[in-house]
């Protein structure tokens, strides 16, 4: 074991003393977590003092890849960043695709752990056997692409990959991001703030270590099967054309597109902001992550801005969620947020929450230094976001996120924050997608869909649902029956995606990965025996590990719930009209399945 798949080294960086140490990866240690997110979580659970200040030197920032990262397996070059979250105080992590993970893999480091705090702003130049601590005063306040270009120029190598923070990360906005490959965002839970607190502007990687697979022919065989499954998938054309922005039309059609901060589930101006319109009017070409054959991302140009993206979450966050019908404004915000290093979902939640509270008279402009915003007021939104990114004026309070900001207001305003465990809810109204609702409630990093991504409930594949989960209702979005079973299945596949560092749009939404294919891939790739049953067992354990770690961070079971709005207040119009979520029942069932 060890010759195949893994780079077999761990890099330990201590920023306070500007020291590094290279360890051998303990292959027995990693066997039951494989790599990527579950391996990072295990490391965090073992080595972090749960009471540490997330923005202090003791927080442990971990970059992790897996045994098949950057291999021939398509869409499998994600890198996961893990630490204690400054936004939520619990487990924080966020993954991103692009090129960084593949290049990190070639350095031979399966994990990079970073502790301490540098006395001056610096970046790390990481190669196979060395780390250079490079002071970079001129990069202070610089955006992502300029930082990336400057590091490449300084290193005289334009294949160097960079994961950097923008000004928001330096300012320790609690939901600041880390951005790699120019526009690939480790968005959620404020990993950029952790990096900012360590005075670390960027990680630059350049590797040279080849990756060997144990059984080349068997591996190629599995890879080919997966490539074909992707190419022949019935959503291929749609996803190729629009990527995740296709969901604008899909979710609006079934009445769950968050509009005016979840007060409505559809907007009448969808045609102005849809994925179709974006593709037709502004997209100039497709973009792709390392070795992917779906190419679902895009580059766009407007009169004033150009960038890669946006994904659905950002597009919806800055259109219907804020009552905005101006698509170029949303595209401007995508470019701005990615370059400043801000999470689009959490940013939009602060703004949307303020707008709703002001509409309802719960917050007056004087409460916020004169800040007053209404639905779709793009100019005012722009100003508020700029203040937030720079922690200027009232922006300093907005930069702590909607949940913390709400604590200086009354209980009614507090319940209007669309969050679970302090993490702001994504764009998808759970009243019309019940398995997603359950996922938001139980997800170990707070309200989030990617821990399980139960896209299956939108597919109406009723026969398959009966076979897999014992009831046809698991494939019907409005039903609650069978959803706990669907989520416990999907959260395991989600873990496998994160361990293989595969994109979940492909692995999960397109239903490409399962226990059998993962076992075959891992066995061919690493030479270690993995059976589907063993994968079931270790993913089950991994979910429990998350749960127990969060308890150490002070989480209580009763926090596995949803904001009151989704439990009590039905939507009044559209195909999801009249529905609320019986979250307690689904969570209880989920707990039973886990025997917690």
């Amino acid at each position, binding site marked *: 074991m060890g010759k195949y798949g893994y780079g077999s080294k761990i890099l330990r960086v201590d920023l306070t003393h500007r020291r590094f140490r290279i360890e051998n990866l303990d292959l027995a240690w990693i066997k039951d977590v494989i790599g990527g997110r579950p391996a990072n979580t295990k490391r965090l659970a073992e080595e972090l003092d749960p009471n540490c200040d997330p923005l202090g030197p003791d927080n442990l920032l971990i970059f992790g890849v897996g045994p098949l990262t*950057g*291999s*021939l397996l398509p869409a499998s070059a994600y890198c996961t960043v893990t630490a204690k979250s400054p936004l939520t105080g619990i487990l924080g992590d966020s993954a991103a695709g692009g*090129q960084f993970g*593949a290049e990190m893999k*070639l350095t031979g480091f399966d994990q990079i752990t970073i502790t301490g705090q540098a006395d001056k702003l610096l970046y790390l130049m990481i190669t196979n056997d060395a780390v250079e601590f490079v002071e970079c005063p001129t990069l202070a306040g610089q955006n*992502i*692409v*300029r930082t*990336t*270009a400057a590091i*490449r120029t300084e290193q*005289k*190598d*334009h*294949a160097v990959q960079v994961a950097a923070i923008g000004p928001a990360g330096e300012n320790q906005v609690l939901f600041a991001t880390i951005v790699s*490959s*120019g*526009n690939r965002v480790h968005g959620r839970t404020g990993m950029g703030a952790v990096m900012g607190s360590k005075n670390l502007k960027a990680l630059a990687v350049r*590797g*040279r270590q*080849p*990756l*060997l*697979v144990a059984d*080349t022919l068997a591996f190629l065989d599995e890879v080919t099967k997966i490539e074909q499954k992707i*190419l022949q998938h019935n959503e291929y054309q749609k996803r190729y054309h629009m990527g995740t922005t296709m969901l604008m039309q899909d979710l609006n059609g079934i009445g769950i597109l968050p509009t005016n901060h979840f007060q409505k589930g559809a907007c009448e101006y969808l045609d102005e902001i849809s994925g179709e319109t974006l593709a037709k*009017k*502004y997209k*100039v*070409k*497709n*973009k*792709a*992550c*390392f*070795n*992917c*054959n779906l*190419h679902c*991302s895009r*580059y766009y*140009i*407007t*009169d004033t801005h*150009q*960038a*890669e993206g946006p994904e659905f979450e950002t597009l919806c966050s800055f259109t219907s969620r804020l009552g905005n019908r101006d698509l170029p404004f949303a595209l401007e915000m995508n470019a701005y947020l990615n370059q400043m290093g801000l999470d689009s979902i959490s940013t939009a939640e602060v703004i949307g929450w303020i707008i709703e509270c002001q509409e309802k008279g719960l917050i007056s402009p004087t409460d916020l230094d004169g800040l007053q915003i209404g639905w779709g007021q793009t100019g005012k939104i722009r100003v508020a976001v700029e203040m937030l990114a720079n922690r200027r004026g009232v922006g300093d309070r907005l930069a702590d996120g909607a949940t913390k900001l709400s604590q200086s207001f009354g209980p009614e305003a507090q319940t209007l924050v669309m969050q679970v465990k302090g993490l702001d809810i994504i764009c998808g109204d759970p009243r019309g997608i019940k398995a997603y609702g359950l996922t938001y409630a139980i997800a170990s990093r707070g309200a989030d869909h990617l821990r399980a991504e139960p896209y299956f409930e939108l597919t109406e594949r009723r026969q398959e649902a009966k076979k897999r989960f014992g009831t046809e209702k698991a494939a019907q979005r409005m039903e609650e029956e069978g959803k706990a079973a669907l989520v416990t299945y999907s959260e395991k596949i989600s873990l496998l995606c994160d361990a293989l560092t595969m994109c979940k749009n492909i692995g999960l939404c397109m239903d490409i990965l399962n226990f059998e294919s993962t076992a075959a891939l891992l066995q061919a790739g690493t030479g270690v025996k993995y059976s589907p049953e063993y994968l079931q067992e270790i993913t089950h354990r991994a979910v429990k590990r998350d749960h127990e770690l969060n308890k150490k961070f002070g989480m209580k079971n009763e926090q596995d719930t949803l904001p009151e709005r989704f439990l009590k207040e039905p939507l009044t119009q559209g195909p999801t009209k009249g529905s609320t979520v019986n979250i307690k029942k689904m969570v209880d069932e989920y707990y039973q399945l886990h025997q917690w």
Partner: protein
Amino acid sequence: MEKCTGCRRCETACAFYHTGKISNRQARIKVLNLYETGIDGPNVCQQCQQRYCMNCPVDALTLGSNGQIIVSPTVCILCGACEKACPIGAIELFDGFVYVCDLCGGDPRCVKACTENAITYQPDITEKISLADIKNQAGKMNPSQKRHFYLNQLGVELRKKWSKHHG
């Protein structure tokens, strides 16, 4: 380049075919992703008119029947003259070996790996491109810098087209 999405499947396939490993550093076709302009593109030997690299002090380089450069590892002394001479960084020394496109014996794996048809192999084209202009400008850059410079040059026209698309 208009079609290239920057996925680097060509690179991965090239390295894998030649080495049996996943080792993009050893690819003979190299993709650059220029995040500041949105340009992505592969860089590979263009079989230029000038054949700058052939000016080898020990004559280790010969031309193959498909016009490809063949490096004799036994004659080559790894002096780096070819790497210095190539204006676009398409021939490079790495770990004691000279890497340059060999067209996979007339059946290039990069072309097969590209699902976007961004790479084509056109053996019938007789008109060779000239890299004289680039050579004058590339100066003393290293191969990575030369690839960067060349791709930026090529990207200018495409970016003009994109602006027009948007009107």
